[in-house]
C-alpha cells in the first residue's frame, strides 16, 4: 500500500516538474518577438478601411475651403487642418466636383463646378508621395508610435493603396469632359499660402459622362 502511495507522489511530483519547465529554441523566441514589431501594411490597411473611408463624409468642400482660406486663413487652418508634426505644412481632407479639363502625363486638371471664377485644381495621378492622406483626417495620433520610421512607413503604405487600388481604373478611363467627384487630401503651407496650385491626392474618385 505504501509503495502505491509513493508511486503516486513521485508521479505527481514528476508531472508538476515536467510542466513547470519549458524549453524553446532561441530562433523561435526571436521570431515570435519580431512578430510583435510594427506592421505598417497592416496598420495602413486597417486605417484605410476602418477610419479613413468611414470618415470621408467629414471632408470639407474644396471651393468652400478656398473661400474660407482667402477670408480668414488662420482660423481655417486651426479648424480644418491637421498634421502629425509641427511646422508650416498642414493637411486638409477635402471633397469636390468638377469637369476634367485636361488629362496630363502626371495629373489631371479639373475645373471646379463653381461660379464664373473658373477655379482649376489638379488631381495627382503619378506622384503619390508624402503625408497628405495619413495626416489630413486627423485620426492618427502620433503617440501611437514610438519609432519615427513606423509612421513614415504608414504614409508609404497608404500611398501604395492609392497607387494600386484607387488610380488604375481612373487613369484607364478618364478623358477630357468627364464629370468627376473626388475626395482626397491636400497639403498647404500655413506661412506662405498658395491657392493657385492646389494638388489633390485622391482617396475616392467617382466619374460620370454627364455634364
Amino acid at each position: 500500500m505504501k509503495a502505491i502511495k509513493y508511486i503516486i507522489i513521485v508521479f505527481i511530483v514528476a508531472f508538476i516538474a515536467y510542466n513547470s519547465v519549458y524549453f524553446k529554441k532561441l530562433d523561435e523566441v526571436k521570431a515570435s518577438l519580431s512578430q510583435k514589431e510594427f506592421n505598417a501594411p497592416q496598420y495602413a490597411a486597417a486605417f484605410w478601411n476602418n477610419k479613413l473611408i468611414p470618415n470621408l463624409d467629414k471632408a470639407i468642400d474644396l471651393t468652400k475651403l478656398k473661400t474660407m482660406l482667402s477670408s480668414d486663413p488662420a482660423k481655417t487652418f486651426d479648424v480644418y487642418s491637421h498634421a502629425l508634426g509641427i511646422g508650416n505644412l498642414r493637411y486638409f481632407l477635402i471633397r469636390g466636383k468638377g469637369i476634367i479639363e485636361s488629362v496630363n502625363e502626371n495629373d489631371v486638371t479639373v475645373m471646379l463646378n463653381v461660379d464664373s471664377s473658373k477655379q482649376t485644381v489638379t488631381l495627382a495621378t503619378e506622384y503619390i508621395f508624402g503625408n497628405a492622406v495619413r495626416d489630413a483626417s486627423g485620426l492618427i495620433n502620433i503617440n501611437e508610435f514610438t519609432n519615427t520610421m513606423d509612421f513614415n512607413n504608414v504614409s508609404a503604405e497608404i500611398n501604395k493603396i492609392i497607387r494600386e487600388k484607387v488610380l488604375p481604373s481612373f487613369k484607364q478611363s478618364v478623358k477630357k469632359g468627364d464629370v468627376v467627384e473626388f475626395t482626397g487630401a491636400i497639403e498647404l503651407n500655413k506661412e506662405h499660402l498658395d491657392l493657385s496650385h492646389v494638388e489633390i491626392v485622391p482617396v475616392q474618385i467617382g466619374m460620370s459622362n454627364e455634364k
Partner: protein
Amino acid sequence: MKRLLAICFSVPLTILFIVVFACGCKTDPSKAGKKKVAVIVSTLNNPWFVVLAQTAAAQAQSLGYEAKIFDSQNNTSLEADNFENAIASGFDAILFNPTDADGSVTNVLKAKAAGVPVFCMDREVNSTEAATSQILSDNYSGCVALGKYFVQQLNKKGNYVEILGLVGDNNTWNRSKGFHSVVDVYPGLKMLAQQSADFDRNKAMEVMESLLQAHPDINAVFCGNDAMASGAYQALVAAGKAGDVKVFGFDGAEDVINSIRDKKISATGMQFPKVMAQTAANYADSFFKGKKDFPKKMPVAVELVTQENVKEYIGYGKKDNAQK
C-alpha cells in the same frame, strides 16, 4: 533621571536638526530663485548649431529661466562632463543636441535618474525611454518631397550619384531612405554610386571629383546636407560640368539658399532649427508647470526650397519667421 536628561538633550537637538535642514533646503541654489535650463549642444563650430543653441537659450530666458550653453565639441566624453556639471550645478532641465545617437543615451539616462528632464533637439538618441521628448526634423518626409522634385527635374530618367553624410548618424539614413522611397519607384533613374563624405564640404568635393572621373555621364547628385552640396558643386565647376549636373542638398544653409537663387543648385530641404529650439524650451516650460505626457518624438516639417520658391526663404528659415 537618565531618561529625563535624554529627553532634555534630544528635543532641542531634533528642533535644531529640523531648523538646519529647513535652512539647507532654502539655500539650495536650484530651488532658491529662477529655474535653470542647460543647453548642451554637439558643436558650436557649425553656424547651424550655433543658431540652434542660441535660440534655445534665448527662448528659455524669455520664459523666465536662467540658461547656459555647454559646447560638447562633437566629443562624447566632453558631453558626459557637460551632463555631470549640469546635474551637479542644479540645472532643472536640459535642452540637448546629442553628439552620438547611441553614445549619448547613457548621459540622458543619468539626467533622468537625477530627475532632470531632457528634451532632444534636431538629433535623436536611440532610446524611446531616455529623453522626455525628442523634437526632430522630419528628415524622411523632407527627402520624400526632395525626391519627388528630383524625379520631376530629371523627367524620370538619368544617371545620378548619392553623397551620404556620416554613416553612423540616423539623419543620414532617414534622408537617404526618404529620397529612395520615391526615386527607386522609377527604373529609368540609375544610381551609379553611393559614397559617404561625412557631412563635410571638402570631403564631398574630393568624392565628387573621383566620382566624375569614374562616371563621366552623371546627370544629378543628391547630397545628404548642404555643406556637401556646396563641395560637390565646387567639384563640378572645376570639372567644367556645373551646367550639366543638377545638385540637390539638405539643410537650408545660407550659402546654398544663395546658390539656389543664383541657379547654381537645384533644391534643398529647409530645416527649422529655431522652431526646434523654441519648441524644446516651451516643452521644458510646460514640464515645470506640471505637464508630463509629451510625445516621445515630435517631427518638425521640412520644406522644399527650389528655384521657383526660393524668394520666400533665407538661411535657416522663412523670410518672415527667420528674422524673429
